[in-house]
Structure formats: C-alpha cells, structure tokens
C-alpha cells in the first residue's frame, strides 16, 4: 500500500513542480503560482532543477515545494489555508496548513541563497510566518505586532532574506499561534550547506519530519484548539502509525534524520538496533568533540534535532517516541484500570443490558490491538497496525527503519517485512516446563507487610475473635 501511494505521491509532486516552473502566465504576473499537494503520502525527493545543487531530503509523509528563480532569487509561494489532512486512512482531520497539506511543504534552499517568500492568507483570521532558527533582518522574523503587521485574510505579504546558515529549521505562525499551531500550521525548512563542511557529513538518506500533537474528540474532525496538555493524537508530520511511511536504507548507508518538535511536550525519539549521534540542532552543526553516542534523543518543545548513523544492521527497526502513551492512538484518559478484576458472572448480565458489550482490559490493554471492535466514525484506534508476527499494539509516534542489503540508491519504496535469517528470531521454549507455580507473595489489593487487623463486623471472615 505504501509503495503504490509513494509513486502516486511522487508523480503528483513532479507534475506540480513542472507546472509551477513552466507556466509563463504566472511568470508574467509578479506572484509565483503556489504549488499544492493533495496527497499525504511521502513524495520523492525533489532534485533541484536549477540553482546551486544539493542532496534533497525526504519529508516523511510530506513534500518539498518547487520554486521559481527570479533574477537569482528563489521565489516560493506559501498559501495559509484550511485543509483536510488524512492523518491515517479513514481518519481525516480539519486542519489549517499550507498549500493543501498540514504540515506545509518543506522549503529546501542552499546556504547563501537569496530567498523571497510570498505568503497569502486564506485563513479566516490574520496570520504571519516566523522563520524559526533563521538569521534574518528583524523585520522578516514574522512576529505579528512586534516586527510586522499581521497578514489579514486575503492579503499577500512578501518575506525576503538570505539563508545564511546551513541546518534544519522550521516555519510556523507567530499570530494567534496557540490556535494556529493547534490546527497544524507548520512546515520544515532545510538549508543545505553550500560547500563541504567538516561538521556536515554527506549522507545517503536524509529524512525530515516534525512532531505535532492534536486533541480530536473521537468521532469529531476538528482539533480542540483550547486544549493545553491532554492531547490524544501524536504524530510524525501529522500522520500516525501504521500510516507513517517507513524509513528505508541500504545497508551501510549513512542516514540522517531531522526531527523538529512543535508539540507542547518533549519527545525522547528512540531508534532500535543502532547508535546515533546528534550532529546538529536548529542552532547549527554540533562540534565533533561535543557529540556522544545515543539511542534516544530528547527533542524538547520548539527544538530540532539532527541525528546521524550508519544503518549497518539489517532488519525492521522500531523508531518511535519513548513516551509510551505517545505511541497510542486516541484513548479515554479517565478510563479506570481493569487489570485483575474478577468479571465472573457479570459479563452475561451486562450483555443482557448492553448486548454489544465485550469484556476488555481485565488482563491489560493488549487485546485492544487485535480486537478490531467498531469505533465511532473518523476515529483511529488506540492501537493498530499488524506486523509479520501479529498485532503491533502501537499507534501514534511510531514507525520503522528498514535496513536492507539490496536497495537502489534512490529507492525509497517500502521493501516489505524483513526476512530473518534462520535461528535469529526469539523462539518459544518447548522443553520441560516450570515444575510448580511460582508462589505469589501478596494477593492484589493488599499491601505486603500491612497489618491484617480489621474492625469487628467489617469482615465476613472467621478470625475476628482472634
């Protein structure tokens, strides 16, 4: 599924790129025609048709916007507008984004490029764009009211500056930003280095995504913008597992992953099977002496992290936020824990009153992943996704890093599930079983070592006269 859509997405991106670059009618007018994207699939990397060459990034479930060269200036056109984002198949959310999607298109430029960005506001309220992490004239910083007037609905503003610093950046509004970012207004900005730098390695695969979180009532479509902490949709680029494209790499490729955090909490991003180094932040490349190996890096609120590693271990490796509830889809946060509760004799009685009732949670919540019970419309399950060995019991900020020996250099297609070499998968012990049940020290509901004195009459027990 991912493979097919991947090509479709790539084709769309190329078509729009060509269209935007070749229509002279638009060139005659001062304003470049904005490119737009209708698909939430991962688009193929956009090889720069003009300007300084660079190795493009792959935006996870996103795309890079084409540009127009005008007298040596790279011109982009962003349109801030309401969009419907497919967060997962069958689960669409009303968002605000740019050029048809949320997050908006990735802007890729090269260090030293002069950049002119037209920003048209098709939102119902005013907006601005702040170019997060850029060195630029103060009046281009995009803080409504502080450095510029707001962009009223229907108006187009122009930002112009030189991309002075290579690195990983982002853009987002600085006008009613709590609502606008809760609605999904954000995008990536990558400035590639002009020349080889000792701190910036050449990589074979360069992936980028933003972390964003939403609070969508199960069955509703619009995020609750007034929520401050209690989010239920945790996304990579406004997409949730299993709908997030896997990151693929040929064995021994050098892989860079760029992660930006526009949620309201930190995310420890964790990769299995490899150690990586944080090679850069939105402050720039990290000096080599300051790098140390990690398998998890915490991306704090408003930060960007750039990690690099050699994908030398074959397999399907999990890549996820290590806050376990961030790898969950929507769930009720007030639902009591049912683990260990004796339901004997009650289930059929409840079914008499609520015929569709099914017992859940008395052994834990893992059953949820495989039950596939009907949910409210437009609601993504708390955990879903199936792997080669069964239910994955994950949703949200989770995807896989797929390392394969045989893979073309520019091949980003999902290679399918890993075929494990013989005897390399954990197996079930089929030898002699454990002789006796392990004795249980403390029954549930009673603290170990607590005095077992009870008030007379409160216990049906026989020992009250002891």
């Amino acid at each position, binding site marked *: 599924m991912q493979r097919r859509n991947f090509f479709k997405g790539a084709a769309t991106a190329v078509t729009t790129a060509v269209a935007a670059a070749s229509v002279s009618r638009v060139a005659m007018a001062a304003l470049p025609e904005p490119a737009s994207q209708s698909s939430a699939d991962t688009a193929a990397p956009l090889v720069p048709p003009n300007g300084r060459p660079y190795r493009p990034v792959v935006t996870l479930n996103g795309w890079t916007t084409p540009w127009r060269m005008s007298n040596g200036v790279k011109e982009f056109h962003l349109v801030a507008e309401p969009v419907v984002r497919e967060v997962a198949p069958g689960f669409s959310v009303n968002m605000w984004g740019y050029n048809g999607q949320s997050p908006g298109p990735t802007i890729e430029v090269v260090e030293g490029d002069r950049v002119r960005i037209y920003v048209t506001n098709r939102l119902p309220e005013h907006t601005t764009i702040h170019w997060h992490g850029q060195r630029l004239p103060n009046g281009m910083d995009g803080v409504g009211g502080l450095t510029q007037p707001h962009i009223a609905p229907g108006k187009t503003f122009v930002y112009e500056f030189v991309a002075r610093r290579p690195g990983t950046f982002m853009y987002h509004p600085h006008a009613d930003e709590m609502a606008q970012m809760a609605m999904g207004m954000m995008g990536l900005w990558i400035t590639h280095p002009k020349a080889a730098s000792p701190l910036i390695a050449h990589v074979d695969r360069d992936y980028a995504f933003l972390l964003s979180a939403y609070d969508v009532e*199960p*069955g509703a479509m619009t995020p609750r913008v007034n929520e401050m902490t209690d989010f239920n949709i945790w996304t990579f680029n406004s997409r949730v597992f299993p709908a997030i494209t896997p990151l693929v790499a040929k064995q021994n490729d050098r892989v860079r992953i760029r992660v930006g955090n526009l949620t309201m909490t930190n995310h420890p991003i964790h990769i299995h099977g490899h150690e990586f180094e944080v090679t850069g932040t939105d402050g720039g490349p990290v000096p080599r002496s300051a790098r140390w190996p990690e398998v998890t890096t915490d991306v704090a609120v408003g930060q960007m992290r750039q990690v690099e590693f050699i994908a030398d271990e074959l397999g399907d490796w999990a890549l996820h936020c290590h806050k376990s509830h961030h790898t969950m889809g*929507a*769930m*009720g946060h*007030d*639902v*009591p*824990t*049912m*683990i*260990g*509760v*004796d*339901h004997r004799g*009650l289930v059929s*009685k*409840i079914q*008499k*009153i*609520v015929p*569709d*009732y*099914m017992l*859940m*949670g008395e052994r834990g*919540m893992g059953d*949820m992943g495989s*039950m596939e*019970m*009907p*949910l*409210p419309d437009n*609601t993504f*399950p*708390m955990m879903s996704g199936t792997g080669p060995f069964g239910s994955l019991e994950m949703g949200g900020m989770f995807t896989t890093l797929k390392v394969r020996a045989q893979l073309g250099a520019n091949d980003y297609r999902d290679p399918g599930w890993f075929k494990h070499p013989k005897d390399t998968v954990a197996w079930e012990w089929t030898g002699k079983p454990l002789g006796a049940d392990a004795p249980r020290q403390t029954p*549930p*509901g*009673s603290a170990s070592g607590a005095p077992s004195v009870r008030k007379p009459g409160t216990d049906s027990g026989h020992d009250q006269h002891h």
Partner: protein
Amino acid sequence: MNTRRITTTLSALTAALVLAGCASVASDGLRGDVQQQTQSRLPKDAQLASANADARKEAQDRIADWLKQPVDQDTAVRIALLNNPDLHAQLAELAAQDAERAQALTLINPTLTLGRFTNGHEREIERQLGFNLVNVITLPWRSRWLGWQMERATLQASQNVLLMAAETRRAWLRAVASEQSLAAAVKMNDAAQLGAELARRMAQVGNFNKLQQARELSIAQESAAQLARARLAAATDREQLSRMMGLWGTQAAFQLPAQLPAIPRSAGELRSGDDAEATALRERLDLRALRRDLDTTADRGGWAGVGAVFGDIGATYSNNRSTDRETGHVEKTRGWELDLPLPIFDWGGSASARTRAEVRRSAALLQSTALRARGEARTSWSRYRTAWDLAHQQQAEVLPLAKLVQDETVLRYNGMFDSVWQLLAQARATTQAVVNATNAQRDFWLAETDLQLALTGTSPGETAALGSSASNAASNTNEQGH
C-alpha cells in the same frame, strides 16, 4: 246533565286507569335504554350487567373466558360493565327511580269515608267515596313529565356508564404503563447493581479507592429505591384496575399485555379538531339531559299557576243513609261534592314565578354546560393533539436519539474512551428514555379517552396533566461521570 257528568267522570277515570296501566315498571330496570344510549360509545359487544340471575351467571362465564388471555383495553371495559359493583348499584338505582315513577303515575287510591252519627232520634250513616280530581286530570301531563324525568335519569345513568368505562380505560392504561415502567426500573436497577458489584471487585484488587466504590454504591442504592417505588406504583395501578373490573381473589391474577397500543403513526390519522365543538354539542349526553330538564320545567311552567290554585280539587261521591231511630224511616241521600280552593290569597303567582325562575335556571344551566362542553371539546382536542405530538416526538426523535447515544457510547467503550460504568450509566439513561416515551404514549391514550368522553359522552372531569413524564425524566437522568 247528570248523566253526561257521570259519563265524563267515567271516561276520565277510564283514561286514568289506562294511563296507570301504562305506567308499569320497566322489566329490565331501563338497562336496555342505557345500553342503547351508550352502545356506540362503548367497545363493540359491550354489555351492561343484567339484573337477571341467569344472565349474570352467563356473564361470569364470559369474564372467566376473557381472563384466560391478557386483558386488552376494550375487554377491561367489557368486564367492568358486567362486573363493576358501583355500576350495579347505579343501575339498580335507576330501576328504583323507574319504580318510583310508575308508582307516581298510579292513581291515588280513592278515599272511602265512613261515618256514623247518632242523635236522639236519628242515626246517620255516611259513605263517601272521594278522589283527587286534579290527580286524574293531570295524569297525561304528569306522565309526560315523569317520562322526561326518567329519560333524564337514563341519560344520567348512561353518563355514569361512560364515565365508568373511561375510568376503567384510564386504569388499564396506567396499569400497563406502570408495568412497562417497572420492567424498565428492573433493568435500570440491574445496571446499577452490576456497576456496584464491579466497583466492589475493583476495590477488592486495589483498582478503585473507597470514594470511587462508594459513588457506584450510592447509584445502586438510589436505583433500588426507585425500583421499590416503581413496584408500588405498578401494584397500585393494577389494584385500581382490578377494582374497576370488579375482580378479586384468583381472578385478580389476570394478565396484561406487555405494551401499550402504538400511537397513530401520522398526524393524518388523528381525529380532526375542526368539528369538535359541533360534535360535542350534538352528541353529549349531559347536554341532552339538561335539554330534557328545560323541556320539563318549561312544560310545567304553564301548569304551575293553575296547579297552585286548583291543586286540591277534590271530588267526593256521598251516599248517606239516615235512619229515624223511632220510626225506622230511612232516608237516603246521594250526591257529590266538589272541593274548590278559593284563590283569595294565592292566585298561583308565586308558584308561577318559581317555575319561571326554574325555567330560567334550567336554560342557564344548559347554556353554561354547552359553553363548558365547547371549551372541553376544544381543550380536550388540544390536549389530545399535543399529547400525540409529545408521544410522537418521543417515538420518532427522542428514542432514536437515545439509541444513537447508546450505540455511540458502546463505540466509545470499544475504543476505551469510556468505561464500563459510563456504559452502564448510559444504559440506565436510555432505559429512562424508554420510560419517558412510555409515559408519553400513556398520556396520549389518556387524552384520547378524555377526548372521546368530552365529544360524545360527558365532561371528562379532571384530566392528567401532560408533561408529568418530562419532570420524571429530569429527576432520573442524572449524569454519572467518572
């Protein structure tokens, strides 16, 4: 002259005797008349209790037959008509009135006066046969008036029959609705008890604290109390129905249908309100009874003065025999006397005034009742129509919505967005919605009963206020959050 007078007297006497012969007691105590008046206003084949012992036994067999099946609304009315002791009493009262009428129309027995008087030389034997002449002369009129009065009494009894039938219908509707509500209360209580039991087990393994458990327990207690109230209401309403049907002992263990009849599907099937007033004025028995009153008082008006003046005309035939005690000579005198009151003091003015006032009162009473009938026709129809709107809203909108909420809650439970307690709380709320819908359905049929009565029978009296179910709903659907 004499002969002619005698002839006149004789013919008057003959006529009176004939009329007196007519004034026999109705053999069925006028039940047939009542039956005829009420036939079209009662369920098909509904029979009044008979005074006849055989018929009564047959009726008992029929009742026993009916009671083998769940008793529907019409059958409840049929049983009540045959079996309700109050109705027996009322019909017996009517028969008694009829007997009184017959008695009133029987000529007053002539008076035979015998006298024996003696003095020194004479012994006189007096024999007088006297009777009230007016009594005889006014017999045709009195017969007419009393006939009207009986017609009026019959109409009154008919109204009582209809009121009784309506009251039985109401009792049936309340009893069935109460049983439906009781079934719902049992279900609600089951849900609450399950919640409490599950909470107890939660606390047992340390997943709930005492407060959380206590909250679920208090819901269960409240719900148990509600169940007790529902049981009492169902028992009371059923008792009332048994009483109306005159059933006791093993017969009181009759069965009722599980459901009230469905309300009409569309507003088009409802009775139109356009002709409500005209129908009431044309059909209502209380109006017809008052019209008879007016006829009677008006007819009497002409006679009142005359009656007051000549009310005591008496005719006496005397046959006196005097015997001379010494000579033994017998002298016979025969003759008649006429007692005529002299209208010196009372020319019948006050009596006329009284009857004129009575006519006016009677007319005013008729007018006022007609006015009330019009008003009742209008308001009963409005109640009926609004009751249908409310019941239809419950059926067509509220219940589907409650079901949707229930279904969505199940979906939310499936997704672990809601807990099983929220699911059970919603099940209770949904059941309460069913109770509210049942009450609205019952209120519609109660209003329909009142409307039938107001249009074709008599004043429906106090009717149940609509919207009582809404207030129940407010008090019983407390949101149970977690």
